[in-house]
């Protein structure tokens, strides 16, 4: 009798579609949740809603003409797309980038890292119900946007780098402006931490939630803050040095030095917070040691690229951003494969999410810092 009762009372799990229009999926991503009460049994992520065929476009556009498209791969950190693409083509062309240009690239990239992490930390707080930190982050980001406007002329889709350098040199007085911003920013971060990071509710929501063990992180090819938060000491800027990064001293931030454990959502959050500080230090070093000289080699209008295959990667804000470029000796790429950090970060959700609650999933998802267009490209 009891057995029969149990069988009849056994219920199905509820299937809920989280997204494509959902406040916390950061774009159009669909997570099909199988729920038992509020506890998740299984997640099936559906991506591709923002597939803009950027890889196909690269086969139709000349190498130079594809630079603006690399902005759109990850619009929150457009500099890194620029840099990875330019590095790939420079490697095929065999161009040496002037040292000043490398320094300018590093400054632009690290500024971009700061504003991207501001958004990442802010939206994460927003996913947990605190709206104010998000707008405080946006406010500081706006100051960098003004600087970016002077560096390259745009606020979001920078299109700053060219094969063999950058599109324009610093305006006079810009370095002073950047240093002023950094002075303010280094005071702003403690205030941001007082507002949200140290908050007991915030920490309780994040620690021990969505723990990614290091071996799983490596197996899933996670990159950037997500990988380092799991305790894996790996940073492309240090281990596969490119650009001018070998000339700077910076710390590679590893997660797990705070409350909670390595690999949980709070570790990922803290790695981002600390990386902003490190980025500020790198910018200071770069501005102090910026060499004189040309900011680009002779402008390549429409380069014919020798045939070959190359894989270039940069340490983007969301992990490794890699461009696998195949050239067949014309002025157009034969095939480009873009490897992004968000794409692999999405694939970690199905193994980790079961057992979390719906509220935890938004925290976990926010801590992965997934940007939908970068997933789909």
């Amino acid at each position, binding site marked *: 009798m009891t057995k029969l009762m149990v069988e009849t009372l056994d219920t199905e799990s509820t299937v809920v579609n989280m997204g494509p229009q959902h406040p916390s999926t950061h774009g159009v991503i669909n997570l099909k949740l199988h729920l038992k009460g509020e506890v998740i049994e299984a997640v099936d992520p559906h991506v591709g809603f923002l597939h803009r065929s950027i890889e196909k476009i690269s086969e139709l556009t000349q190498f130079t003409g594809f630079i603006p498209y690399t902005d759109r791969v990850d619009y929150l950190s457009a500099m890194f797309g620029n840099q990875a693409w330019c590095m790939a083509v420079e490697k095929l062309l065999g161009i040496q980038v002037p040292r000043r240009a490398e320094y300018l690239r590093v400054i632009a990239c690290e500024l971009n890292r700061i504003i991207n992490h501001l958004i990442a930390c802010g939206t994460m707080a927003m996913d947990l119900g605190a709206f104010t930190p998000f707008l405080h982050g946006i406010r500081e980001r706006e100051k960098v946007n003004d600087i970016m406007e002077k560096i390259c002329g745009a606020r979001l889709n920078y299109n700053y780098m060219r094969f063999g350098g950058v599109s324009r040199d610093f305006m006079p007085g810009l370095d002073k402006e950047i240093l002023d911003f950094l002075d303010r920013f280094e005071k702003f971060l403690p205030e941001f931490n007082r507002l949200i990071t140290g908050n007991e509710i915030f920490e309780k929501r994040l620690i021990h939630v969505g723990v990614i063990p290091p071996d799983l992180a490596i197996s899933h090819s996670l990159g950037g803050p997500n990988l380092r938060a799991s305790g894996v000491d790996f940073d492309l800027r240090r281990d596969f040095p490119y650009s001018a990064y070998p000339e700077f001293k910076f710390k590679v931030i590893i997660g797990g030095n705070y409350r909670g454990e390595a690999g949980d959502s709070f570790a990922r959050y803290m790695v981002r917070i600390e990386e902003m500080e490190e980025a500020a230090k790198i910018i200071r070093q770069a501005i102090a040691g910026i060499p004189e000289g040309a900011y680009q080699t002779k402008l390549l209008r429409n380069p014919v690229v020798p045939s070959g295959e190359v894989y270039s990667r940069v340490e983007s804000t969301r992990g490794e951003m890699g461009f696998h470029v195949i050239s067949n000796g014309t002025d157009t790429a034969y*095939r480009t494969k873009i490897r992004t950090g968000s794409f692999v970060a999405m694939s970690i959700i199905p193994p980790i999410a079961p057992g979390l609650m719906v509220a935890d999933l938004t925290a976990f998802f926010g801590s992965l810092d997934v940007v939908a267009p970068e997933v*789909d490209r």
Partner: protein
Amino acid sequence: MTAPEILSAIQTKFPEIKLELQQGPAGDPWILVTSGDVANVIRILKNELGLNYLACLSGIDYQDSLGVVYQLRSLSGKFEIMVKTLAPLENPCVPTISDLYASANWFEREAYDLIGIQFQGHPDLRRIMMPEDWVGHPLRKDYQPPAEYHGISTSRPNTHQLLDQLRTAQNRSDEKSKVDTVPHVTQSGTVIPKSGEGQNL
């Protein structure tokens, strides 16, 4: 470790596997493996040489064959290698490596979706970017995009052509082009008087 070193390291241990080191006129070198051996070679690379990180997996249409390129990396040893395999166009079958690297699961789904490579032994080979009912593999070189998808046109009107057509039509209906005499009002309400009229250069 460089590519030749890795190649010789495998060859000395497993001489029966056919490997070839190739490089284009520019760019990185890669190890070419036959499609039957590729899973074994990558297993050896992972277990013996510690290439524990699959950085990238791309499917490529080489027109005479389909290719899969694996970008493997050792996080501790700080070296990486490109491994390439080719599969025939008619029956593009490549063994899966999703049991070796969890990330290969989605990478292979993408390569299947966009290029049409069949990964044998893959647990969940579905489309990932395109809708489930999409026909064809869009990144194939011989792919022809459909004119519409469920009644939605896949092309946009070309404004230049539209303007051309309009002008032709206008000439046909013998109307003179009207000069816009309305003062220019921007969205913010700033009125900018229409200047320079008749100032033909």
